[in-house]
């Protein structure tokens, strides 16, 4: 500790004076925290590696172990499977939003943020934005994996990109939902344990892995129209054609269903997450 004399305090920044500078601060703080969250991802490459290993194992498991026993009419099973895998992967990934926030709370970082003259909304926005960017990476990886095991999209690049955007939008809404879980959990381990019972029924009682017609009729209603399923059906329609869903519904039907669910979830989750963030002591 060599020269520790402090100059008189000077550089205290001006407080934002209008709504315009408030927005500017929100954006700049969100960028700062998004960068910080993404840096953390690159600093633990093992975590990123293993979080892609798990979905790859699901691909191999369903493609080569269960797939042979699952009958799909309009398309090959691998074409049926991959859209489901994409949505499942980002849904499981959304759990990391809850773990990340719970960890920041636990370690006292959010305490520090609260005492800084920064924008209040930036902590949640920075976290969800970072998870959105990570999902782009994950979908690119999973697309390559899919192509390697025989996945052949049939509808062209534009349609495929549309499907990817739909998945990302849905995953973003889920991130806000899991932000609430992260802000409620006492620690990051509990956040993880709390998240999986929420995500499991949604991913497996769905159109993701097996045709809906193979389920008992009392289950089909939920399995068809729950938000996760309609997003899978929308992506499947956009990637390999509406007939592949085996539901007789059109592509636009599923796309609107998915968009409506996603917007609805955002309208519910965002205010709840913000309130939880404000009141968490």
């Amino acid at each position: 500790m060599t020269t520790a004399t402090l100059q008189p305090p000077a550089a205290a920044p001006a407080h934002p004076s209008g709504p315009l500078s408030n927005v500017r601060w929100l954006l700049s703080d969100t960028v700062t925290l998004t960068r910080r969250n993404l840096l953390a991802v690159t600093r633990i490459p093992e975590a990123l590696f293993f979080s892609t290993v798990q979905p790859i194992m699901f691909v191999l498991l369903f493609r080569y172990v269960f797939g042979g026993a699952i009958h799909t009419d309009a398309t090959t099973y691998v074409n049926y499977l991959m859209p489901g895998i994409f949505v499942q992967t980002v849904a499981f990934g959304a759990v990391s939003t809850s773990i990340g926030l719970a960890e920041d709370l636990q370690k006292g970082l959010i305490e520090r943020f609260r005492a800084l003259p920064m924008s209040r909304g930036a902590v949640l926005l920075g976290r969800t934005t970072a998870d959105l960017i990570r999902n782009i990476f994950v979908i690119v990886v999973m697309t390559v994996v899919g192509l390697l095991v025989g996945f052949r999209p049939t509808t062209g690049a534009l349609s495929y990109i549309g499907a990817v955007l739909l998945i990302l939008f849905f995953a973003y809404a889920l991130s806000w939902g899991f932000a609430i879980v992260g802000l409620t959990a006492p620690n990051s381990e509990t956040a993880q344990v709390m998240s999986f019972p929420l995500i499991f029924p949604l991913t497996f009682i769905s159109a993701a892995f097996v045709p809906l017609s193979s389920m008992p009729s009392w289950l089909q209603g939920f399995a068809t129209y729950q938000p996760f399923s309609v997003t899978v059906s929308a992506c499947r329609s956009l990637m390999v054609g509406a007939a592949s869903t085996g539901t007789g519904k059109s592509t636009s039907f599923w796309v609107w269903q998915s968009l409506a669910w996603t917007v609805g979830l955002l309208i519910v989750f965002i205010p709840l997450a913000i309130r939880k963030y404000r009141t968490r002591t």
Partner: protein
Amino acid sequence: MTLAIEVHDLKKTFKGKREVRALDGVGFGVEEGTVFGLLGPNGSGKTTAVRVLTTILQADSGTAKVLGYDVQKKAALVRTLIGLAGQYAAVDENLTGRENLQMVGNLNHLPRDVVAKRAVELLAQFNLTDAGDRPLKTYSGGMRRRLDLAAALVARPTVLFLDEPTTGLDPQSRNDLWEVIERLVGGGTTVLLTTQYLEEADRLASQLAVIDHGRVIAEGTPESMKADLGATVLEVSLPSIDDAARTGAILDTLGPHTALVNGTLVEVTVDDGPQAAMTALRALDAEGIAPQTFNLREPSLDDVFLSLTGHRTEEEQADDDVTPKQRRRRRRAKELEQAMPVATGELA
């Protein structure tokens, strides 16, 4: 005299399964450019007071002002004037030291070039230049605390809050950190320091408030508090309870307060340690009492509490059902754990 921090009748109750009244009418004032020590055991309300003052938490009632601004009504403004270093070293594990400082600088909305320059300055100032580009995972506990303190200083705060800055540190790191804090104060920063250690408060603070159950139970300079208490504690253990009782009677006359007999252990606070020790040894020898151990040590927060409230800090009270020997052993273990550089002069 200008007050940098003014607190009046602050109250805060945490609702939950068990209601906890964390602050029960706390009030104090901190003069500009001084270090104020808030001294109290775990759960006394120190951290809650700091969280209210740093705008993290809203009090139920009462007022708190920093540099004349109400922390509730002018929270956004107050945040631009303060720095906070907490007891849990709130720094990001996955970033490097430099990235941590830059993140805090950016969140303070300092210009980009100022942020970069401040990070270099602070890393040098806290002896972290070599470690600056290493991730925090490789830092020792002391280095983390130093970085945490550096992060609190990025925006050159006028008022600095240090919540138990050295809890859990080894003696060497603790001393290093004390030196840094002393230099800061030389620069004119107002500091509110919370601590469980009398020694720390004594070394750093010019004014003290002792807090217990969310209330200030004593205020004054460290000198006046020590004068009330006695500067040194003489601690003698005896082979039998009977001997302890007789020893207690002898030691009663040595200090401003009567001796405390606790099983086979006798403690008394005295002003002049060596002198009192000689007197005590002569008197014990004359009575034919042979002590098992004979120690001089600095008074602890516990001793302050005992003299102020007649009871020890909560943790010790909860142990009422254990024998004095067990209690002593536990306290020793705790002291060792906290690695306090206690001046223990074994008199042979």
